[in-house]
């Protein structure tokens, strides 16, 4: 799966959880999910569950903790997808 494709899918998943839509409009790989997009930290786990379902993967707890920016998240997803193949 291509990096851009993963990124696009991830953005669709996180959009309903975003509380700062202006920051979402300027989203880039360095965007911080909690700090920039103001996503409620309790909802991060729901994003992980949605990601797992969308990509048919399982993300371990250690990797979840590393999903801080868009780049971290895409890297984590790509690693899981690759491992699954």
């Amino acid at each position, binding site marked *: 799966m291509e990096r851009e494709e993963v990124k696009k899918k991830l953005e669709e998943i996180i959009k*309903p*959880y975003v509380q700062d839509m202006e920051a979402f409009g300027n989203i880039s790989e360095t965007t911080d999910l909690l700090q920039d997009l103001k996503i409620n930290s*309790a*909802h991060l*786990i*729901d994003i992980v*569950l949605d990601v797992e379902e969308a990509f048919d993967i399982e993300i371990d707890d250690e990797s979840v903790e590393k999903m801080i920016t868009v780049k971290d998240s895409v890297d984590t997803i790509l690693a899981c997808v690759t491992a699954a193949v």
Partner: protein
Amino acid sequence: MNRRVVVTGLGVVAPNATGLEKFRSAIRAGKSGIEKIPLLGDLKFACQIAGIPDVSEELKHQYFDELTVKVLKSTGIIYGCIAGIDAWKDAGFNVSSDSDIDWDTGCVFGSGLTGVDALRDAIYGVDALKVRRLGSRVVEQTMASGISAYMGGILGLGNQVTTNSSACSTGSEAITMCYDRIKSGQANRMLAGSCDSEGPYIWGGFDSMRVLNRKSNETPEQGSSPMSEEASGFVPGAGGGALVLEDLDSALTRGAKIYGEIIGAAVNSGGQRGEGSMTAPNPDGVKRCILQAIDSAGISPNDIDAICGHLTSTMGDVIEVDNWSKALGREGDDFPHINSLKSMIGHCLAGAGSIECVAALLQLEGGFFHSSINSENIHPEIEKVISKNKIPHTLMEATNFEVIAKSSFGFGDVNCCIIFKKWNNN
């Protein structure tokens, strides 16, 4: 400190109407919200009729964000929040996620078993070894205080924010608790309310106890008939009601609309002794509660113009009317007028007390007394105690009503009575 407490905002989601103005029209018209529910038939319920509020997806989007609409399984929380937000706006306040915290306003919002549908999904998930997939929104919907937690966050309340639960007296008890808190000076303003969800998992236990009406499956609108000879079991319902209670000075200072004053209230328990039990009220407790409320209001039993009863459409109606008569020392033509909103909406369980108090205030403020529908054939034991004309079968104009008493009784032998007085600017 002993301050006066008035009601400055109302909100309601009831089986016969969603929203205050529609509800006012519905109760004036004697509109039933009871329908046949096919699911109950499919599940082999003896009672297959119920009162469920009409809340469209479109309406939900006016009150909750997209994500919350998607995950909210607890209909009781939906009804409660809509009623609460409506009451808040009706009192003249805005709802904004970035409003300042209001340290002097709190919330007591009662519930029964609002989270049962969310809990059911969670139980299936856990049993299927999928606990890690439950997500973040199970706890807030299944904890008893889910509704007050939602309300407190939506409105930015900084005083006490809690949920009470006392079965069918929950709503009235919540109002009493808020009244006490303002009266004693611990808060200036409180959102008081209650709610309950609908569905077979809540109602199944009642169906099995044979306390629900099983004779009206083909005539749902006639199914709830408090004080009638036909009353043979209550019709289950769901919904939510909310009231903004406020210190009189605060209400006057900001020029708020005042629906009425709460001049007295009492809660107690019959201790499940004597004739009282888990399911039946001890008449000594009921009479004592009524008299305590009257005493705290500083009025005489003769000052009560009307009673909005608990009156569930069971054999308990006979006992309730008798308790009122004995407590007040009034009978026959001397008895106050009495009606039951449950005749139109069924018994909304934990939601009942607050919805019925909203109705009581609309009647007091609007100078009318709604019909107690399906009561034409009055129970002979009730007719021995009070005159037939004390139960309205059509809408009564009642501009002279100054004082209305509202009672609620619940499983566990718990009682609540609130005395509302018309607001006359003095």
